[in-house]
């Protein structure tokens, strides 16, 4: 499998050159058919009477090899196949927001209880969209420029853009009003522009240029925003064995991060879990817009029992949808759970085609496939000159918790942030079970500059202090296990205490709690400062001769509960609890 490269634009080859072809051989998802001319690599093919979608993966002599995206049971040699003359492409349009689709972006909402192979899954209803033009007739426009807007699709207006590679005078423009998605709303230099568009999923949508991002994606999760922040347009891998709370963490980010559009790709996920995500998203309110969270979300559900090759396509489909919204100048986050299942689909397919296996049966191209996927993330200046970004967050499920297996090992090299989930933390009910020793963020230096510019110059210093406190507490924890806490000098006992306060008062966060599930950026700073101030005061106390045991006996509950007792933006509440705590410590006597 490889990315299709080539000129931008979706110009199709003439349809007349695609004669019907005959199937020669069927073995599982691999179908061989006659070469009848007019077929190119990675072109889409409709196979057999049911019209199963498939993709050309090899052309050798007069035989074309096609991989079917669905179950091919009953398909027989002699039946016909119809080359479609274009690569696997998806319909992009306003109907995506709030919708639920399969790996090939066919709507699931209108489909039946069971997904039968090849059945046409048309949209539930073909509705019309309220279009308002933003350019006048005869105006000169260039690629990526906004021709008009569609409102009512979601919390953000969906823009209709001049297609890549197209420029010139607006020859026709629709008047404001309701139009179906396939309606031509403008003609630019002889090219018809419809409300929706099509794009081949394996080809990145073009941009003017990639830019550096200094702006953090606020996730509302303290351990991430404080210690391992991610810039808009960056890449994150989240490795974790089963039972470490990976899916819960990703769902938290899908719900609360401050992106404009979320693309949630359930790639080989559990069906019941997917049903849960769908139900929850439709019930939750977006704290920023007041609308349903589902309305800013595009869900791609390809559960583990849905066709394997559609699973392979689903991550590309997800990124393509994200790029579509990015080109309107929006910040988009793609969450792929889990990329390991995608890699397994690659392996399954490679083994069926008889490709030589590399590590653990994965194809030799695994590393480059992973790299190419993550490279589609970027902060960009769009063709139309706007700023937009695609951030990719990919879960990794290492088999047997083995972090040296190929998918985890390769992914670590290509991403900018790693949020590594730890089984021991999960076992100790410390959620999110993000390991501070095993995670990294290479975005920290640029984001420190960004925070400084945004009026929070203390951010980097605060992060360093928390990191130091945690590292010192971890070092001492080993010692305490050997010799007991009582044998440590008083100052070091305060370091152990500081570690506990940071872990329980700042890093732990309850996804189930109404007030704690999301934490504003200022509250994260306030909580951290409060805990650090209390830890400093404790140290001053023992320095002034107070026995360490008396400090340890103080009830730190009010401070530790501040994260749950105050609202997500309640800085004053945190400060009040800090002051009360400090006052309480003042009463501790030597």
């Amino acid at each position, binding site marked *: 499998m490889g990315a299709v490269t080539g000129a931008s634009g979706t110009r199709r080859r003439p349809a007349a050159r695609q004669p019907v072809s005959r199937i*020669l051989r069927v073995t599982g998802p691999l179908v061989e058919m006659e070469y009848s001319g007019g077929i190119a690599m990675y072109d889409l093919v409709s196979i057999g009477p049911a019209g199963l979608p498939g993709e050309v993966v090899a052309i050798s002599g007069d035989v074309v090899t096609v991989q079917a995206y669905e179950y091919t049971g009953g398909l027989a040699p002699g039946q016909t196949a119809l080359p479609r003359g274009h690569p696997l492409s998806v319909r992009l349009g306003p109907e995506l927001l709030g919708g639920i689709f399969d790996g090939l972006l066919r709507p699931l909402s209108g489909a039946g209880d069971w997904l039968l192979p090849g059945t046409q899954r048309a949209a539930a209803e073909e509705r019309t969209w309220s279009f308002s033009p933003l350019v006048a007739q005869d105006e000169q426009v260039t690629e990526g420029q906004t021709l008009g807007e569609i409102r009512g699709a979601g919390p953000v207006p969906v823009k209709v853009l001049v297609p890549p590679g197209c420029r010139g005078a607006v020859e026709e423009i629709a008047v404001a009003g309701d139009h179906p998605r396939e309606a031509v709303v403008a003609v630019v230099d002889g090219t018809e522009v419809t409300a929706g568009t099509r794009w081949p999923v394996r080809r990145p949508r073009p941009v003017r240029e990639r830019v550096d991002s200094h702006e953090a994606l606020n996730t509302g999760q303290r351990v991430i925003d404080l210690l391992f922040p991610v810039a808009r347009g960056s890449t994150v891998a989240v490795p974790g064995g089963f039972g470490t709370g990976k899916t819960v963490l990703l769902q938290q980010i899908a719900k609360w991060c401050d992106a404009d559009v979320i693309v949630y790709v359930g790639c080989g996920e559990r069906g019941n879990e997917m049903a849960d995500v769908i139900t929850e998203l439709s019930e939750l309110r977006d704290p920023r817009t007041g609308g349903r969270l589902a309305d800013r979300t595009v869900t791609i559900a390809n559960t583990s029992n849905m066709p394997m090759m559609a699973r392979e396509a689903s991550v590309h489909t997800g990124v393509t949808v994200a790029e579509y919204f990015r080109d309107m100048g929006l910040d988009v986050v793609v969450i792929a759970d889990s990329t390991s299942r995608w890699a397994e689909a690659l392996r399954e397919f490679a083994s069926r085609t008889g490709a030589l296996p590399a590590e653990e049966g994965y194809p030799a191209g695994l590393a480059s496939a992973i790299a190419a996927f993550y490279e589609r993330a970027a902060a960009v200046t769009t063709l139309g000159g706007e700023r937009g970004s695609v951030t990719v967050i990919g879960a990794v499920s290492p088999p047997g918790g083995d972090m040296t297996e190929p998918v985890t090992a390769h992914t670590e090299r290509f991403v900018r942030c790693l949020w590594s989930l730890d089984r021991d933390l999960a076992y100790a009910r410390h959620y999110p079970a993000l390991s501070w020793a095993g995670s990294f963020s290479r975005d920290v230096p640029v984001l420190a500059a960004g925070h400084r510019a945004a009026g929070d110059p203390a951010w980097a210093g605060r992060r360093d202090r928390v990191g130091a406190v945690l590292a010192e507490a971890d070092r001492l924890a080993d010692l305490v296990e050997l010799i007991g806490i009582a044998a440590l000098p008083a100052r070091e006992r305060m370091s152990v205490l500081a570690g506990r306060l940071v872990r329980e008062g700042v890093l732990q966060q309850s996804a189930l709690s109404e007030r704690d599930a999301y934490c504003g950026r200022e509250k994260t700073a306030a909580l951290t400062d409060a805990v650090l101030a209390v830890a400093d005061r404790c140290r001053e106390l023992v320095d002034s001769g107070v026995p360490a045991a008396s400090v340890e006996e103080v009830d730190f509950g009010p401070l530790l509960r501040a994260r749950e007792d105050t609202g997500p933006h309640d800085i004053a509440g945190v400060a009040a609890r800090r002051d009360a705590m400090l006052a309480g410590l003042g009463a501790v006597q030597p």
Partner: protein
Amino acid sequence: MNPSGSMSLSGAIEYTHVGELRGPLAIVEGVSGVGWDEYVRITLASGERRHGVVLDADRDRAVVQVLEGTAGMDPEGVRAAFTGSPLRVPVGTDWLGRVCNGRGEPLDGGPPVLGSHTAEVGGAPLNPVRREPPSEPVLTGVGAVDALTTLVRGQKLPVFSVAGLPHLELAAQIAAQATTAGEAFSVVFAGMGLTHADASFVRDALEARSVAGELVLLLNTADDPVIERILTPRIALTVAEHLAFTEARHVLVVMTDMTTYAEALREVSAARGEIPARRAYPGYLYSDLASLYERCGRLRDRPGSVTVLPVLTMPAGDITHPVPDLTGYITEGQIVLSAETHARGVYPPLDALSSLSRLMRKGAGPGRTRDDHLDVAAQLLAALARVRQVRDLADLVGQAALSPTDRRYLDFEEAFLWDFVDQRSDEPRALDASLERGWRALLTLPRSQLSMLPARLLDAHGAKGLDEPGHPGHPDDLDHLDGLDGLDGEASR
């Protein structure tokens, strides 16, 4: 068009030109219109009937995998009739009360199972949008399972075991006892690669349920064809889906042993010459297991549910082995059995700390089971985690040096194992009784240790402080412990 073809009685064209026999494969030549994965009926010259599946439909050649193997097959005189579609089985309530082999043919002396409809055994994926999130329990009558890892309707919850542990007894007990609060309930039990002794044990244990017309029993024994094992769970799930979503029943599908199933899959994959992945299992093991486990669930606007309980033995007790590992990634939790608990003589030998039902929060507690259910379960598990620490400490410093509270934890473990977990394999235990036993075990601990339980409930159950007399539930009060002292040696006394 085809000189070797002739019409058989069933209307399918029979082909007689078998060009090659190799391993389990028969290559039939001169065919036309034969589809991939099509089911094949093969008749030998002697009249013997065999069955096969098309692995490769290549122009006018069909590579057929013979389910019963090719032993004794002479290419001369073999007739292969292609059925025109992948394997379909009849579905309907006629299956209830029947005992069949792994291919669905009667073992009970009755007529072949017929149904008004047939369905493809491969099934089709449930539309995730049409799924209803699971929210009500299936009560198994096994106290520790119901109280700590509640099985929820529509869930897939595997039992992880090791060779030598009574997982088959547990599976049979759950199959015999499970209920759904009076709603129509059926069990489909699929045994794969069972020994004849195990197969007859299962038949005996489930006889009452079978007579009551609530059971479908499919038994593939260890000496049955390996490939048949790949069909057995699929037939079971196809029958179950129909009983659930068309006949409006809650259906529990017990599948044992999934490791044997995966080995059959590996054997077939090797015969097909596929490139092996981890531990020589085929690269598609994950997708294959998912295509079975994911057939559980509930549907919006349809009654009934399919709950799946696969049982698997971890080779050499290794939980990172591909079969338990991949299963763990697909299923919603796991029930783990422990050799250590088994050695102490406790049945079921549950490793409660490693066991988990991910959907329990949705299927147990207020409005579902009992208001205090989740709190009691959480407190029992928290206390067990502490027991583990105390045991480590006791190994280091000796029993005598433990604090009074820590010693109470050792008492708690005794009560937990012998009063709460231990149960006869033919004893259905109501959830209320199980939770009361849980309370009894918890009350061996001083009140200060029961922080997860609301004060109101603690008062109602008479929880006492560490120094208060009349502490209930102390092991000395549990008369059935007498005579068992030898078993746990110095563990607690």
